């Protein structure tokens, strides 16, 4: 693996850095898990997109710069180092867009991607159902054929930011008689304000209201909003999960920046005699470095090796970043001592958003495929152990 950046890489980095220095809001935006914050982040997406920074790796025709995966990683590093806002468009950009690039039609790409890049249409993921979490293939919501499209019905839940988003993408059972649960599913997109859709917000652990469950009652979806072939939804969806767990959902920049902030916090608040806490800071910093190098190795493999990392490798990524994120935040709270328990909205809260970051980190081992399920995948697909009863 070659970690030397060439002159083009360095000048790209400088260009990103300069742009961010000139544009990142001076004060942090309100949390994107609230109505107010959602609107502010939508504007930020528009600002990013105006100078084609919202989706650097996409082709230019859709609002990107056609940058390589390596430049995308550099962009992400600079983005988080600059303390830029979280990405309210992330579900669309990280999950739906790769699916459309792989399985969508040219018409769908042209219609959907530019508006996504500009933050005009913000997407929610509607996969999970109350009874179907880890066992997603057991989902029960239906899609029934009708003139020119489908009528979808059922209940979806845990949809991040669906309380404020515009549209959603999800899986529906279109053939109840298929011989296996994974067959007979169809992947499609719908508007959250369409007739027949009811959105009910669910407070998260920190009380923020952006999570939601969706009740769908014969919502019409035109044929043009089906992704891939009807009945092939599982295969289409699985191309997304690799992205969700792997490289693109959690680029190393985020953890590298958090590790730097943690180091600064330790220099400010750390007691040099407390070697146990110092060692935990060191371990988190080392973990962030390991994750960065592992990711660069993955990128090198994609760019110069024989193809992308194997699908199950994304399970290694998922476990690693989710546990690293918790370690970074728990250590920060310990460093803050009596201030560590303050909520972000407390007037005397220490800056840095550690409280929201901590609470969100706790969900990492649950979403994007729980870590228990990821360990099974690693054991079975990477280590070749026998499949358990499931």
């Amino acid at each position, binding site marked *: 693996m070659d970690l030397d950046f060439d002159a083009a890489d360095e000048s790209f980095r400088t260009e990103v850095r300069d742009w961010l220095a000139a544009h990142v809001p001076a004060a942090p935006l309100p949390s994107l898990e609230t109505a107010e914050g959602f609107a502010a982040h939508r504007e930020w997406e528009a600002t990013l997109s105006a100078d084609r920074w919202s989706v650097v790796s996409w082709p230019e025709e859709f609002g990107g710069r056609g940058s390589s995966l390596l430049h995308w990683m550099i962009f992400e590093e600079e983005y988080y180092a600059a303390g830029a806002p979280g990405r309210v468009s992330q579900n669309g950009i990280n999950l739906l867009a790769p699916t459309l690039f792989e399985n969508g039609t040219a018409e769908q790409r042209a219609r959907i991607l530019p508006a996504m890049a500009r933050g005009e249409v913000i997407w929610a993921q509607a996969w999970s159902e109350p009874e179907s979490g880890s*066992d997603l293939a057991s989902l029960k919501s239906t899609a029934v054929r009708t003139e020119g499209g489908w009528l979808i019905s059922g209940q979806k839940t845990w949809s991040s930011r669906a309380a404020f988003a515009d549209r959603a993408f999800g899986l529906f059972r279109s053939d109840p008689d298929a011989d296996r649960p994974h067959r007979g599913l169809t992947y499609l997109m719908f508007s959250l304000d369409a007739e027949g859709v009811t959105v009910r917000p669910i407070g*998260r*652990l920190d009380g923020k209201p952006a999570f939601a469950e969706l009740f769908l009652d014969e919502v019409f979806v035109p044929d043009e909003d089906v992704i891939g072939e009807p009945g092939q939804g599982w295969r289409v969806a699985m191309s997304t999960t690799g992205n969700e767990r792997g490289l693109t959902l959690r680029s190393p920049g985020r953890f590298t920046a958090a590790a730097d902030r943690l180091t600064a916090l330790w220099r400010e608040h750390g007691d040099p005699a407390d070697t146990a806490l110092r060692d935990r800071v060191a371990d988190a910093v080392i973990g962030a470095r390991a994750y960065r190098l592992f990711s660069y190795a993955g990128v090198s493999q994609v760019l110069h090796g024989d193809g992308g990392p194997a699908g199950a490798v994304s399970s290694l990524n998922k476990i690693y970043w989710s546990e690293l994120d918790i370690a970074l935040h728990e250590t920060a709270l*310990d460093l803050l001592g*009596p201030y560590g328990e303050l*909520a972000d909205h*407390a007037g005397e809260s220490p800056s840095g958003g550690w409280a929201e970051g901590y609470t969100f980190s706790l969900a990492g081992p649950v979403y994007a495929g*729980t870590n228990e399920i990821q360990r099974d995948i690693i054991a079975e697909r990477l280590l070749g152990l026998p499949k358990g009863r499931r």
Partner: protein
Amino acid sequence: MRFLLDAEQRDFARSLDALLTSCDTPAVVRSWAAGDHGPGLAVWARLAEAGVFALAVPEKHEGFGPLPLELTLAFEALGRHAVPGPLVETVAAAALLDRLGNDRIAADRLPRIASGKSVVSLCPTSLGPYALDADMADAVFVVDGDTLRLAAGTGTVQPSADPARRLSRPSGGTVLAQGPAVAAAAGYAADVAALATAAQSLGVGRTLLARTVEYVTQRTQFGMPIGSFQAVKHRLADTLLALEFAGPLVHGAALALAAGDEGAGADIAAAKVTAGEAAYAAARTALQLHGAVGYTDELDLSLWIRKARPLRDAWGTPAACRARVMGTDR
């Protein structure tokens, strides 16, 4: 050393549990977090009637105590039911006022604490600037080195990760006492507080475990209860292991405190770090095994999840407790 509970102690724990079960504490916690203290104070009155606050007050001031072991039984029950309020602070303040050697102050304050008429908070500035629930307490005591003050103001509430913990900075006020007696009494009070917090953590952890066991038995994925998957079983087994080994440390520390052992402080610290970490690990496990529903504030489980970490750090962080165990604290 008698390590088993006697019949009376078992009855006390059982009746307290029954009392709190009848109080619908989740609703009480939610109102407390919203700043409505009425339902919480009603529970407070019933706890007082059951003798909880009298356990920290000596007989000569109308209490039954001090009875550290019974106190830990009570606080475990309080943790099990996630009861809100400056419970630890009130009993610690009672311990402090009792030890101060000032009969006038003790006679003035302690009977009211024992009877539940007075809810007080206590802030040793060495542990941080905040007092718990000072906005609703009748009296807020501040210990600054060897000075004891009765605070005049309480400042703005700073919401905690646990919304039922309302923190604020006590300010100003009159000096009540000064000198080595204050420092000694405050040290003893901090031990009582750490012990009660350890017991409370244990209760929090036990509820988290019990609710999670119930959930994984009912929730099915892949056509079977998730509790049948080995990954889930092992995590719960480890949770039980950690709580079960924390229990005897809490019990032993209470006995050491009751006996006035010289090493009681270190025993309490050992109990505090172990129970606090076990309860926090139980919270992580509970969240993980409930999946996304565990990440919502609608589910009552969140009331315990959010309590576990602040309790782990209150009245002695794990690092401070370990230093005490090793005798390297200053």
